[in-house]
């Protein structure tokens, strides 16, 4: 059997929905079953299941069936990859914005930039 690597494509698509990001956030604290994931999102079981399927396709989440319960857990590697690029983006940009904050403070102090003097 050929095991297909999840593409960035699937990961990107999976992360593009706020409900799925919330599910991942829940799962980052430990295993949850489908109803536990559905409840805070005020979502029906089938709707939640559909979102989990997208996460499964991206290999971000794995689900196993225990009796009547679908237990979901986060999959480390693809998740790390997805989080890594988001975090990388923030890490690169946040210091820029912090410097920009400081520059803006300075510009605000400059009487030339006061409102009404324009």
């Amino acid at each position, binding site marked *: 059997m050929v095991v297909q690597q999840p593409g960035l494509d699937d990961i990107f698509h999976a992360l593009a929905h706020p409900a799925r990001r919330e599910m991942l956030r829940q799962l980052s604290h430990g295993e949850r079953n489908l109803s536990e994931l559905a409840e805070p999102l005020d979502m029906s079981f089938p709707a939640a299941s559909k979102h989990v399927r997208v996460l499964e396709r991206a290999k971000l989440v794995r689900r196993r069936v225990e009796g009547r319960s679908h237990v979901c857990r986060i999959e480390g590697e693809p998740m790390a990859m997805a989080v*890594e690029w988001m975090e990388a983006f*923030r890490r*690169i940009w946040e210091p820029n914005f912090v*410097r920009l904050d400081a*520059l803006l403070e300075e510009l605000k102090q400059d009487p030339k930039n006061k409102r009404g003097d324009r």
Partner: protein
Amino acid sequence: MSMSDTFHVEPRGDLEIYITRGFDAPRELVWKAMTTPELVRRWLYAPEGWEMTVCEGEIKVGGRYRWAWNGPDGKPALEISGENTVVEPPAKLVHTEAMKMWGPGFPKEGMNLGELLATMTLTEEDGRTTMEMVLAFASKEARDGALASGMAQGMSAGYLNLDAMLEEDAL
């Protein structure tokens, strides 16, 4: 609350990244700081140890801009250039962005990482400005190239914070 709390990065659709950041200043000043080359130079740096070698731009429709950095070894590391396509001070700026990167295993003349279209809008409320930026990649290849380079740059700091990425999602 620190302003950095308002910094969000998230994918939107398959080919876009959506970024927002709040600034504690009126938008005329944010616009000025973001579009005046002498001022851009003071905050727009690449990662630690990099040096900005070129920072020039003409803020008008059809005007070109170019930013370039040397890495810690003093050699060219990154260049971003493009053309301004929409210029509406102090509310909206749209430009194309082509990224070129140098590094181990890359060709001598640098590797083109593909193009994107960056749409920045500034809105102001009570003297504070919200910047929203949509980075729209021309293709999946361009997106993956940019993401890969982001990862390469970010890798050195090497820590993960899932909560930081996922918290307070803008719906």
